[in-house]
């Protein structure tokens, strides 16, 4: 740019705070000699409401094309002065602020030096503003409905919170029923409340209450692809056939009673199910589903026992097929959860009467494989129970403490002892963490023996004439162990891993979805419009799931508001397509996945909605094809030249 645009310079004294060090009269005199001939004014307190009005009038009178404000930190008042420019009819991005208060007046002892430095910085700003471009904020309409992936307590809570605010929600669950883990736990830590009783009112509300109008629950459904960005996501869904029509089925389960085929019940970790059955009594929605791999009819054999007995015509639907669909949403809440480490430590693997925490929960549950009776595989009652805590935590594979296993172990000890008088209960611990007031109550009433062990390598299982024991190598302890429960670490659920991959979200060392900030942004993913709830963020308890479900819904409500468009900050990076060499370096480095590859033009393309203007891609582009608007190379060069001249 050859012609110097008419520039106005506003020098703020900050009520004398700045002018105490910087001699604005001297600077003004110097600017009068400046070849660019800027118009200059000194103001007592430029950010003051009345002063802003006066300054706006002054700007209107002089009609400058660029404005330089020498005042405080742009971190404090850049917005204020952009507003000033707008009110004077000047594009707000024609502003350059110089921080003469925090970074000159307050850090420079000598007034002469401070004044010279201020003048130098103003000179640099005069050079920089020549290259400023008029930028315009873009407004994009956003959808206000939300897709929630995962219908455990966190997802349910998020969906209900949103629906109560009148938002439309698609709640996506890969299992044939919903409620997540705790709905399968009979009693919950720390007050031994009934899990289904805690969750079912909300689940009922979701299925039949006034909010149900706003919520579409899709069971047996997985997300296969996600496209779009904040405000306008498209999720491709694939729903497996249930072979049961939810509109017609009355949930009488006559079909299950007459079905001749049996399969193992994966949800109970034991016991059997018919080929058409519900996972356990009370699972919601109260519908059976057909295991296509086991159903005789679906495998070409003569059957149809269920069809013959079903009291409702059409409730069983063997013509059901996979359904693919696309749902559109403004935001996505990921509530895909966690699971227990699926492998048993070698010393215990393959042994009888060894339970994982989850399978023990099911054993204790009335709806579980033994109807809630504490029995071994042979149907006999155990004389002793050994609960191994930290079973896999603090290890090479899982280095962390999940923080919930001690809770579970205390609970098991209590419930098992109550179920069976005279049961010897021992907790084998490496570390114990039972924080919180409520937890302390259960802890102080715990009557189990506690044996410390050093590491899993320390433990072996042996048969003795007194029955089975766990031998603790380091201290020689022999723990009676008719029945063994392994409280293993919590690891990311399959759905969490899959969703992280689909959305290209980063994960932490353990594979949980990494939030934008561990402390202040734990419900936010780095991707705008994708929020996190429950244990996809890391191990947590039910309280946490409810809280984070509410929080994620709150964020969605505050970011997606009916009638409020998304304002896109124009200070983003843009690719000059004709200069792009097609190396894709930028795509690799963008922390926000804002850059996509346009296969038609073979160039990179940046979404202004996703870009946050960090400029990392600018620095990496070997072709110099990317410009950070507001911080372009030309602007920075001019500024550098300015401070050095």
């Amino acid at each position: 740019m050859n012609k110097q645009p008419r520039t106005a310079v506003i020098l703020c004294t900050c009520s004398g705070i700045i002018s105490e060090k910087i001699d604005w009269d001297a600077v003004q005199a110097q600017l009068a000699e400046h070849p660019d001939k800027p118009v200059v004014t000194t103001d007592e307190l430029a950010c003051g409401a009345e002063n802003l009005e006066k300054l706006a009038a002054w700007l209107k009178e002089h009609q400058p094309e660029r404005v330089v404000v020498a005042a405080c930190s742009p971190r404090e008042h850049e917005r204020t002065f952009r507003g000033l420019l707008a009110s004077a009819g000047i594009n707000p991005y024609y502003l350059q602020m110089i921080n003469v208060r925090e970074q000159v007046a307050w850090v420079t002892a000598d007034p002469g030096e401070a004044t010279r430095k201020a003048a130098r910085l103003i000179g640099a700003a005069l050079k920089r503003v020549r290259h400023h471009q008029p930028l315009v904020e873009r407004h994009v309409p956003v959808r206000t409905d939300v897709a929630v992936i995962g219908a455990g307590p966190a997802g349910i809570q998020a969906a209900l919170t949103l629906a109560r605010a009148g938002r439309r929600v698609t709640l996506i669950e890969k299992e044939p029923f919903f409620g997540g883990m705790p709905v399968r736990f009979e009693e919950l830590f720390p007050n031994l409340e009934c899990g289904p009783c805690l969750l079912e009112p909300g689940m009922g509300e979701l299925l039949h209450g006034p909010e149900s109008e706003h919520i579409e629950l899709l069971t047996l459904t997985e997300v296969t692809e996600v496209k779009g960005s904040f405000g306008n996501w498209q999720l491709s869904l694939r729903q497996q056939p249930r072979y049961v029509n939810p509109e017609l089925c009355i949930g009488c389960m006559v079909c299950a009673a007459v079905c001749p085929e049996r399969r193992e019940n994966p949800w109970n970790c034991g016991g059997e199910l018919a080929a058409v059955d519900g996972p356990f009594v009370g699972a919601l929605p109260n519908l059976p589903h057909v295991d296509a791999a086991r159903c005789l009819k679906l495998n070409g054999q003569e059957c149809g026992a269920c069809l013959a007995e079903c009291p409702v015509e059409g409730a069983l639907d063997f013509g059901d097929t996979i359904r693919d669909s696309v749902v559109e949403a403004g935001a996505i809440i990921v509530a895909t959860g966690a699971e227990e480490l699926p492998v048993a430590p070698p010393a215990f693997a393959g042994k009888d009467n060894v339970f994982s925490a989850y399978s023990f929960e099911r054993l204790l549950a009335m709806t579980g494989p033994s109807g809630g009776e504490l029995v071994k595989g042979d149907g006999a009652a155990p004389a002793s129970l050994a609960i191994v805590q930290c079973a896999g935590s603090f290890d090479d594979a899982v280095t962390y403490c999940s923080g919930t296993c001690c809770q579970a172990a205390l609970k098991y000890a209590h419930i098992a002892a109550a179920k069976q008088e005279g049961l010897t209960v021992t907790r084998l611990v490496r570390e114990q963490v039972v924080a919180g007031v409520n937890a302390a109550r259960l802890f102080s009433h715990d009557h189990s023996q506690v044996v410390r062990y050093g590491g899993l390598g320390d433990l072996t299982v042996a048969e003795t004439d007194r029955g089975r024991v766990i031998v603790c190598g380091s201290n020689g302890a022999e723990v009676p162990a008719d029945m063994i429960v392994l409280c293993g670490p919590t690891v990311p659920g399959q759905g969490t891993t899959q969703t992280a991959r689909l959305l290209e979200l980063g994960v932490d060392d353990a594979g949980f979805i990494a939030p934008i900030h561990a402390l202040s942004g734990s419900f936010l993913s780095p991707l705008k419009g994708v929020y996190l709830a429950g244990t996809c963020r890391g191990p947590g308890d039910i309280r946490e799931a409810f809280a984070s479900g509410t929080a994620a819904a709150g964020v969605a409500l505050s970011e997606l508001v009916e009638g409020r468009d998304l304002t896109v900050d124009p200070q983003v990076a843009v690719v000059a397509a004709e200069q792009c060499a097609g190396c894709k370096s930028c795509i690799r480095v963008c922390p926000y996945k804002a850059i996509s590859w346009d296969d038609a033009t073979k160039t990179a393309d940046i979404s202004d909605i996703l870009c946050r203007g960090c400029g990392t891609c600018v620095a990496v582009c070997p072709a110099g094809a990317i410009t950070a608007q507001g911080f372009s190379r030309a602007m920075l060069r001019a500024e550098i030249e300015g401070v050095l001249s």
Partner: protein
Amino acid sequence: MSCRTMPNVAPHPAAEMVAASAPGEVRIVAFLCNWCSYAGADKTGMNQLPVPAEVSVVRVMCSGRVEPTLILETFQKGADGVMVLACHPGDCHYKEGNLRAFCRAELLERMMPQLGVDPARFYFDYVSAAEAEKFSQVTNDFVAAVRGLAGTDSGR
């Protein structure tokens, strides 16, 4: 992240760079990221701690924005020293721009001798929004160090 994603190194006429430093006071350009080091520099002011007047701050959104060529250009335009101050590892507002900046800084320092610029004229460090004292310290130390280098026309 990998340190190998730095193709952005154009050759520069090295010899003129230092020669370009003018007589008089040393001139230092400090690239500060908006969220950590620039905020730290603000805090230095609020705490009334000294920063040498020779240091001119150029604000960028992220230290990851500062490519090696920009730094070399800054030398070429006459800077006696260049600082890049980033958020601490793990604190980057943009997740990992600071680590890219660090990788580039390492590479740049290795290249500098070949380009005829003393690597001592370049300084990379982490300064958080809270580290007022550190900002004061590193700017003062760096200015003193650059003043002491041969070829710098300081103190005349």
